[in-house]
């Protein structure tokens, strides 16, 4: 039996927006239960507002569930022991424009508990893996969107996490950058890392993931395995369209 990296059981997340009189409530995810297995690439598909980013933030402890329970490697997502095993790439990550990539990575490496020679090695390795080495002398302000995304991925890899949570990792990238990132993620997975990625690109998820979760209006509409979508006429796209209709 494969070990469980993340488990959601009956999770609900409701956002409260204060108004002049009272408050407005919006339920982003409801009664959500699923598991992410260690060492597996799982995709998360859904239309805008389906709750994909909320799920990712719940895993990384940036949001707290209103009801239900989220466990990451058996711990609460807010627990430092869980966070030490998770790498997160948010959509469109920001880095100070005046710094060079190594300086930005040094900072995030320190926050991940690395220091001294380990830190230098981790920065070097993350830059090499993400193809940032030739751009080491540039400042972040000179980076293209694709390079920023690589830097975002590099900061998530620094502490060699067991689980990578990637929110739209190929959003807005050119085909060559997408190809490179796909290769990088496949390589990381072959090292035994679990990857959980959300995307609007069905074809990208189809190429990488071995299992896909489809979310519709905050609920889990379907869980599809590679064997299922490969056997289905029209593939994953048809299954997705039918699920969200």
């Amino acid at each position, binding site marked *: 039996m494969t070990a469980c990296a993340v488990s959601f059981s009956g999770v609900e997340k409701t956002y409260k927006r204060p108004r002049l009189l009272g408050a407005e409530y919006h339920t982003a995810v409801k009664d959500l239960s699923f598991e992410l297995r260690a060492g597996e690439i799982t995709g998360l598909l859904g239309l805008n507002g389906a709750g994909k980013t909320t799920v990712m*933030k719940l895993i*990384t*402890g*940036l*949001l*707290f569930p209103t009801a239900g329970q989220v466990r990451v490697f058996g711990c609460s997502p807010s627990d*430092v*022991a869980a*966070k*030490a095993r*998770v790498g*997160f790439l*948010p959509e*469109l*990550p*920001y*880095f*100070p424009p*005046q710094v060079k990539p190594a300086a930005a990575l040094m*900072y*995030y490496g*320190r*926050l*991940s*508990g690395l*220091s001294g020679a380990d830190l230098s090695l981790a920065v070097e390795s993350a830059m090499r893996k993400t193809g940032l080495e030739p751009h080491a002398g540039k400042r972040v302000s000179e980076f293209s969107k694709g390079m920023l995304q690589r830097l975002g991925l590099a*900061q998530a890899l620094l*502490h060699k996490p067991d689980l990578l*949570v990637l929110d739209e990792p190929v959003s807005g990238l050119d085909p060559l950058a997408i190809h490179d990132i796909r290769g990088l993620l496949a390589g990381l997975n072959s090292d035994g890392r679990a990857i959980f990625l959300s995307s609007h690109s069905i074809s990208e998820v189809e190429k990488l993931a071995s299992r896909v979760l489809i979310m519709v209006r905050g609920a889990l509409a379907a869980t599809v395995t590679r064997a299922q979508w490969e056997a289905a006429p029209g593939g994953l796209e048809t299954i997705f369209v039918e699920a969200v209709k």
Partner: protein
Amino acid sequence: MKDLFLARAVAFNSFSESVRNRFFTLFAVFAFTAVYASVLAGVMAVDQEARVLTDFGLALIELTALAYSLFGVSSSLLKEAETKTIYLVFSRPVPRRVYLAGKLAGALLTAGLMLAIMGAIHLSLLAFRGFGLPEFYAWALAGTFLKLAVIISFAFFVSLFSTSAVSTLVISSIMWTLGHFAAEARFMAERLPGFKGIVFNVFLWLIPNLQLFNARDAAGAACALGPGVIVPAASWVAASYLAALWLLARKEF
């Protein structure tokens, strides 16, 4: 030890980002202009030139450092949340108490550097006019730093519940002003009878008495800041930090 290492990383990152920011250079130029203005006031004072030059310069240093610090702090956490930089921090094993302590230390370091730069400009102007180092000058700057520490930590607290940087700026500025009238307000509260007096007294305990750190006023009169003022300053900073931490621990991003 690990927490200290993390807090140091956050503090130095916050400090270097502030110093690299164009806003810092702009303020340094503004500070030079403002402090230089004290030369004009000093010249007009004729035989009291040294005292006016010292007092006026120290007052301008304090107000400029206050404005710089409040502008920086009021948008600091808000900007990190808006740019999602905070996602990269809080998705790592960084306890929120450590992050807040690091941000506070970074802001204090920046304020300290701003004070040192302005102090150097001011002293060079005094030397240019042929005056030596005023007695207790360092105490006056230390008093200003303690005031800044109190108001910076308060601004961090306010920024965690206010809806914009402007409201943080306004609320913190009001607290700064109230803090300079705390003794007068306490005097009045003691004379208020019954329940009203009790409520007013309790409310006043929430306002830091910034007059305690006013060595600046006393510098020309050759009177030093008592070392005992560290305790109230540390207490107000700690209270604001704990209140801010209470909010930050519950905050979602």
